[in-house]
């Protein structure tokens, strides 16, 4: 239900980061979303289209890497992935494990941008000494 607010937050953050690369076009936005993040992928994809429509991000793909829940088991002293999100127990010893190490992520991992080729004059300006040699 809050996927539209999340999509709007992604648009805001990506637009800000992409502004450091003038003339570049954002092709892909890659997210890391934990199993406990309460985000529905289909709904987020739908809202992403709505939120980017008519903006410089229109057409950019949203790629979602889903992360399983990982808990730390005190008894075994290890981090273990749990199956699903219905039982927070160590998959090795079966004891309850409350110490969450992964699963709530809601992050923008990276963006893939396409930049225009630098012009030769720009290369010359950027490397004046090399050009003279």
């Amino acid at each position: 239900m809050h996927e539209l607010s999340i999509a709007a937050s992604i648009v805001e953050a990506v637009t800000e980061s992409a502004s450091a690369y003038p003339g570049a076009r954002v092709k892909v936005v890659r997210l890391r979303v934990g199993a406990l993040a309460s985000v529905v992928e289909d709904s987020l994809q739908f809202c992403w289209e709505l939120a980017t429509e008519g903006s410089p991000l229109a057409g950019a793909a949203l790629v979602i890497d889903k992360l399983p829940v990982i808990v730390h088991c005190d008894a075994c002293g290890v981090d273990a992935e749990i199956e699903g999100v219905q039982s927070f127990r160590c998959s090795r010893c079966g004891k309850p494990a409350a110490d969450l190490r992964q699963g709530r992520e809601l992050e923008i991992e990276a963006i893939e941008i396409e930049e225009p080729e630098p012009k030769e004059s720009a290369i010359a300006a950027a490397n004046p000494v090399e050009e003279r040699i």
Partner: protein
Amino acid sequence: MTTRIVELRQGILKKNDELAAGLRNRFISARVLVLNLVSSPGTGKTALLELTLRELRTRGARAAALVGDLETDNDARRLAASGAPVRQINTHGICHLDAEMVSKHLESWEGVSLAELDYLFIENVGNLVCPSSYDLGERIRVALLSVTEGEDKPLKYPGLFNSADAAVMTKIDLAVPCSFDRELALKNINEIRPGIRIFETSAKTGAGMDAWLEYLADQAQHS
């Protein structure tokens, strides 16, 4: 054209998280215990809060409440009868409270200063999904479930129950007519959030309120 990958590694809700961190610092320096109450609509957040505010006032504690709803100030009016300062936040369609809404309503809350409070309760919008992603700067997140909702609510909404620091089972006076399986409900909560502190209350009979109020007083001492 050349393609470049730019690593960002930033939280999508970074702005909310930063605002919430600021609020948390303010709450700590004002030594006010802040609780965020989350549940489905109709679980009894307002009823528990009505009784809690009244009892706290009787015991000489200074408590206030911010209450979130999509529309109407019905809950704020109900809670204000306790005599505690209460302010309604209307989200107009948004399904959760966020740190900015809390911050704005605190700033413009005439006659209420954090430094003069022992407790601030934030009653979230009734919703078991969205509020779990939005930190409000609270110290304790309380998830409520009523006996009329069924024992498997925690399994259906693990994201929210796993993010809670305490749980309250409400309307226990209705457990028998609802054939509520208490043991199963306790087990389900513990599967999702092992070791969580669980209270069982009835706002109608007052059952379980002593343990709940004792917990609040104990937590406030550490604020």
